């Protein structure tokens, strides 16, 4: 039995500055929540062929039946049409966002239209307010925006404040949406969609009670899961955070460095989770309801440029992926340089991954003399982080045509300026930080949101250790993994807890305590069906993966278990296309 308030959808129309609340029991009963409900709402609300930066684009935030009730059920799913890829946009973030949406009394929020002036929204229980954001539009630093809204709104200390920076205002196609300073709906340009709607921020909070079908069983099941989440299953994320991955990936030769020209360099130790923890780690924080506290924040003390005895101390969040994109990919060898780039990225409101990969591509273009400083305005050189600080600023302020193109993504820029073979994007989304073998590249090339988290091909590569099955089988395995993950993102739980919630007994027991009876097979079929729904949306919007779109660089630089075979990749993609035509058309 789904709870009444959870099955409510809040529809906000920015053009009319109006809102309605509708019970959508039908959607939640069929699709659970999160991604499952989100993709349906996108199909209902966002007409085929919609321009992602037009008022018709629709932003959906959704949570799931386990949100706020179980450990690591702490993520919000954002679904929209991506201005970066022109196709399905899906991005996940934690912080307080999920519990805040649930506590405000909604399972999903739909935002459409475009305001005539910059606004921010506050959503507290049944109250939605539109606030004038003209004075905060254009503020240099997205962190300051958070500070200002914090002072103006209620629910101090227990709310979620989602906001964009200048990157979003300027419609950089890979602008991110920041929540609680350190978490992001990072990928695929949700920040630009906010910007296109003149929407600067959303503040949301609430406090309410959730009645349970079986409170006693709830206490029992919760304890079991909390014990599991605090056990060694999660240790990896607990101690060093995701930055723990840097050294092992470097050791096996899977860490992309200097635009994936190599996988080994002498900066890895300096940028490792170990070094950052030892010399910079200042605080760890958690998403609401998660005991793990994987969010690692560095304390960085920097002397004032001109004035002696003036110091600025910044708290800068770090994770594996930004270390890769703003660090190793740009050949940075100093932790200080990486942290400054990270800080700048946060302030501008860019997706760290796309921004780093875009600058890495620009550097190689310059090195190969395909473009000159006339385009880049800055003499980029791998390792020179000070130049990249200016590069990040230029992506956002777009002083010339080159940066205007780069702000539309690496794929777009390479279509104009060349260098496609080393423009590391997949499905028009910039590459994540793994060069582990064919599974990882196939995974995000064929995945619905072109993310390493779609199907974790990087993990498959490392488990297979070079003993690859037939390409068709590998693709089938990736699709199965991606289908299973749709269950996680509809419950909604963090993918770091996949070992716990893809133990289906756990999930079945959790759902029982809130009166939902689903079998393992029903859950798995639901995952497959949500995957099909996403793929049908993607094909509807014109996506068909082609072998020719793979950047050739991935075949040139050896992966840990040898060079990636072009033939293998070709066959895998052909098989995927056959399956797509059979199932998802």
């Amino acid at each position: 039995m789904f709870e009444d308030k959870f099955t409510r959808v809040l529809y906000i129309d920015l053009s009319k500055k109006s809102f309605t609340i509708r019970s959508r029991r039908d959607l939640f009963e069929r699709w659970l929540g999160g991604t499952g409900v989100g993709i349906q709402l996108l199909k209902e609300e966002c007409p085929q062929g919609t321009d992602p930066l037009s008022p018709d684009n629709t932003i959906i935030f959704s949570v799931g039946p386990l949100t706020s009730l179980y450990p690591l059920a702490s993520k919000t799913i954002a679904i929209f049409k991506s201005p970066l890829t022109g196709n399905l946009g899906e991005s996940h973030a934690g912080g307080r966002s999920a519990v805040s949406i649930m506590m405000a009394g909604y399972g999903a929020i739909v935002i459409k239209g475009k305001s005539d002036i910059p606004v921010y929204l506050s959503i507290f229980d049944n109250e939605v307010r539109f606030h004038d954001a003209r004075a905060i539009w254009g503020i240099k630093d997205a962190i300051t925006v958070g500070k200002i809204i914090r002072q103006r709104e209620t629910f101090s200390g227990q709310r979620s404040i989602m906001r964009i920076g200048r990157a979003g205002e300027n419609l950089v196609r890979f602008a991110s949406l920041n929540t609680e300073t350190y978490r992001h709906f990072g990928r695929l340009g949700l920040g630009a969609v906010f910007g296109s709607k003149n929407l600067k921020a959303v503040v949301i909070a609430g406090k309410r009670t959730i009645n349970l079908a079986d409170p006693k069983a709830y206490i029992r099941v919760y304890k079991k899961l909390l014990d599991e989440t605090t056990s060694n299953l999660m240790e990896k994320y607990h101690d060093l955070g995701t930055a723990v991955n840097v050294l092992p990936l470097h050791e096996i030769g899977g860490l992309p460095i200097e635009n994936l020209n190599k996988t080994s360099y002498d900066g890895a130790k300096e940028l490792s989770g170990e070094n950052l923890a030892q010399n910079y780690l200042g605080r760890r924080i958690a998403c609401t309801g998660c005991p793990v506290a994987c969010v690692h924040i560095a304390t960085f003390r920097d002397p004032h440029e001109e004035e002696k005895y003036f110091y600025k101390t910044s708290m800068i969040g770090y994770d594996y992926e930004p270390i890769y994109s703003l660090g190793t990919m740009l050949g940075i060898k100093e932790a200080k340089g990486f942290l400054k780039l990270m800080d700048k990225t946060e302030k501008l409101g860019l997706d760290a991954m796309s921004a780093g990969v875009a600058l890495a591509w620009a550097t190689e273009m310059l090195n190969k003399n395909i473009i000159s400083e006339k385009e880049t305005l800055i003499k980029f050189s791998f390792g020179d982080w000070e130049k990249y600080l200016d590069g990040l600023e230029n992506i956002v302020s777009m002083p010339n045509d080159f940066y205007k193109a780069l702000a539309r993504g690496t794929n777009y820029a390479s279509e104009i300026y060349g260098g496609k073979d080393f423009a590391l994007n997949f499905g028009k989304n910039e590459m994540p930080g793994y060069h582990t073998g064919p599974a990882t590249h196939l995974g995000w090339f064929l995945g619905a949101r072109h993310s390493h988290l779609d199907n974790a091909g990087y993990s498959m590569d490392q488990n297979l250790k070079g003993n690859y099955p037939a390409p068709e089988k590998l693709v089938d395995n990736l699709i199965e993994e991606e289908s299973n993950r749709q269950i996680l993102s509809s419950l909604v739980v963090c993918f770091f807890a996949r070992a716990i919630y893809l133990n289906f007994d756990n999930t079945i027991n959790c759902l029982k305590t809130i009166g939902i009876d689903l079998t393992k097979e029903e859950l798995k079929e639901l995952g497959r069906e949500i995957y099909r729904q996403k793929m049908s949306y993607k094909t509807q919007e014109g996506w068909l993966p082609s072998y020719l779109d793979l950047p050739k660089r991935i075949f040139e630089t050896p992966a840990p278990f040898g060079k990636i075979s072009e033939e293998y990749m070709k066959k895998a993609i052909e098989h995927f296309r056959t399956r797509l035509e059979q199932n998802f058309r």
Partner: protein
Amino acid sequence: MRIEIIDPDRCVGCEICMLACVRRQGFGGLAKAKIAVHSSGGMEKGFTVLVCRACFDPPCAAVCPTNALEVRKDGGVNLISEKCIGCKNCVEACTVNSIFWDSETNKPNICIYCGFCAMNCPHHVLYFNKEWGKKDV
């Protein structure tokens, strides 16, 4: 008995104590939490944990117009719910801001010192002091 905040610097802001408190009462959500964690001006500044100190001479009881808050011999108060008219005087009176309002029932959330929050805290921020208020201590 009372809940003591022994190391607030270790708090990661997960709010698992708040959720535990509500779970112990047989519910989900946050409206019935008798303990609160909030950030202190942004996540980067760390967290503040608020919980009843189990005062021996509690100001909350002193301002209750209907004697709905009964002073316990071992410190703190018991809420006699049927006497409570929902005036919120107790919330105002609590110097450490540790009486929280349940706006769904229009009654205060009064800690009963069961220790369940401390048992659930994954980072040893809270300590359940069972000796507090005992005569021979």
